[in-house]
């Protein structure tokens, strides 16, 4: 299929977007059909092609081992923000996930199917089976390692059915995988609500924060040499699943939902 695009004039942006969409359609059979879902974080959506997280694709979230729960927390926030219906398959070695905590983050634990696996081979098999199944909101997996072959299988399964795959794995160098995006997540110290005023230790916990970086994103060019963007995501309200993202460096306006335009 060929698309004729008229370049020039004020329609240049629209034409470029159309061209990009055509290219992505050529990249894989399932991807364009599955479309994208906005993550709910305005600043992050603006950095992603088509303004959202691609469905029918595999995404990976890497973190230091100490930040594992931060990474799973961010993954859950993403899922909640995507607002997709259906059960969630979560493949992991130890089912330490705690229902009341998930409920508080906004993910109903009743939606979860946990697959406990001892070996990575079983875990990746379970993920692939999940991605081949229509009707799941997402498939999450926590393998120890993910190589190019395994990730390609998962990506193909996701493309075919249009499912959403999320791999949470420890950061181990910059190994290439077939995932469409790679995020790096770490905890970030919370800050006082009034900038510049240090609060005493026993003042209580402030809003929790994540430092989120988009390291890889197929289909677009990096916005600068550091990557595709880095954000601070802050919980808006501890009891509700609402969070806002601010571009990193903009610490002053941490609690305001209005976010500067990203590039």
């Amino acid at each position, binding site marked *: 299929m060929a698309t004729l695009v008229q370049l020039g004039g004020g329609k240049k942006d629209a034409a470029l977007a159309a061209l990009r969409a055509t290219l992505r359609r050529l990249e894989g059979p399932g991807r364009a059909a599955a479309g994208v879902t906005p993550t709910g974080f305005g600043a992050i959506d603006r950095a992603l092609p088509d303004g959202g997280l691609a469905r029918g694709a595999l995404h990976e979230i890497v973190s230091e081992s100490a930040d594992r*729960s931060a990474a799973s927390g961010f993954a859950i926030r993403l899922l909640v923000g995507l607002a997709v219906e*259906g059960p969630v398959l979560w493949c992991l070695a130890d089912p330490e996930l705690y229902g009341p905590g998930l409920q508080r983050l906004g993910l109903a634990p009743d939606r979860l*199917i946990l697959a406990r696996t001892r070996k990575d081979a*079983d875990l990746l098999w379970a993920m692939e089976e999940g991605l081949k*199944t229509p*009707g799941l909101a997402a498939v999450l997996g926590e393998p120890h390692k993910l190589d190019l072959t395994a990730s390609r299988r998962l990506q193909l399964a996701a493309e075919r059915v249009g499912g959403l795959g999320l791999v949470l794995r420890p950061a181990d160098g910059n190994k290439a995988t077939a995932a469409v995006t790679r995020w790096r997540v770490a905890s970030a110290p919370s800050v006082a609500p009034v900038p510049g005023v240090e609060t005493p230790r026993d003042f209580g916990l402030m809003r*929790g924060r994540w430092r989120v970086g988009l390291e890889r994103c197929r289909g677009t060019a990096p916005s600068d040499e550091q990557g595709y963007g880095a954000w601070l995501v802050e919980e808006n309200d501890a009891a509700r699943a609402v969070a806002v993202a601010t571009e990193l460096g903009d610490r002053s306006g941490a609690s305001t939902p209005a976010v500067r335009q990203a590039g």
Partner: protein
Amino acid sequence: MHRRQRSGKPAKEAPPLVTVADIAGRRVLAAVDPAAALVGLTPGMSLADARARLPELRLVDADPGGDAKALAEFADWCGRFSPWTSVDGTDGIWLDVTGCVPLVDSEEALARDLVARAARLGFTARAAVADTAGAAWAVARYAGLPSSSVRILASGEARAALAPLPVAGLRLPAEIVQDLKRLGLKRIGDLYGMARAPLAPRFGELVARRLDQALGLLEEPISPRQPVVPRLVRRILAEPISTPEAIEHGLIQLMALLCRQLEEEGLGARRLEFACFRVDARVERTAIGTSRPSHEPAHLGRLLTEKICQIAPGFGIELLQLRALDVEPLAARQLGLDAKETDGTVAPLVDRLANRLGARNVLRLVPENSHLPERAARAVSVLDGRHDAKHRQDWPASRPRPIRLLTYPDPIEVMAPVPDDPPLMFRWRRVPHRVRRAEGPERIALEWWREPEAGTDGIRDYYRVEDEAGRRFWLYRRGLYRPETPPAWFLHGFFA
């Protein structure tokens, strides 16, 4: 006995073989082979007598356990002739062939096939087919049949055929047989004319009952080795097969048959068993379970084909059999997941996961009514129907809770300035964390009806703390503060 011979040399060249058992301190012959029987050795004879007659006798220790196991395996495998098989004593097998004959030419063909197959496996067998189990038993054991031969009693012929046989053919205990002989009642026919009334006080009602059973005046069910399941399909193969592809092909055909049968009845299978009858008298069985009753050939077939690699075909498989062990009306159960319209695709996924990973490794979270954090949520198998959605309570979300909780809280070293204060620093797995912010305590007490561990008071003071990197932990101090004992601290969970 015959099991031993199978692995040994042919009986013609070797001296007679007997098995020997210890009975009440005496060495006694337990079984003899045909060569030994020719020279007059019989089971029950003492070893010393037998040696005196035949010094070159070969001896093997009797192995009743092994014999019973071999017989049970053989009986199991006889399921290829009829699904109703059962072991009889230490050396016999019952087969109920009622209705099985249309599958073969005649009863005689079936019996001959059975005896020939047994001979190929090294068993010397005699077979009798009769109207009643009792008559078949008497003829097979007491009619003096030559080895590896069969006798078919036509319908109604039992009375005449049994008359000349000894009374032992009525399956009576040895002492009753002796008593009957003493009265001159040696043949079964001698009992025909007797009035029942005088027999009963002397021998109990057993003699009369056995006689009636043998003559078909009294019903006698055979207790089957496998519970009788009518939902069973089987396929006899023209040639033994051994490749996974061939087994899969046969399985798919059987599955289609069974599923059609289930569909007509409006039922779905919860448990299926696939049995492969091998030419060497072994049966390979694999079973699968499903989370919801199903009669989808594609889904059930896929679950079983994933297990075909576990089937050892040996020298070949000559009969395939598929049974629904558990059936339920369709749609009687809901998976209990938040998936009303996607149940159709998610249930097969759950079944596949459970079949490969094990049902206890495919879990969902259910809330429990407990104050203790580790008891407030539980991971249960998805296939466990006791936690269906309708019985379930809501998840508590009023207080901050970690997203990952350690099943067993980890002890930590803590620096806390004041007894009731959150810690300034703690060390977990040798990594120090400086606490930058903290919130608490939240006191959680053990339910009053539970016995607290010694010295713990049954309470915990929980703190949420954040370290310098922004990581958030859930810590607790066990018990009330006591100046004389250092407080015990634990790390219990991680916040997002």
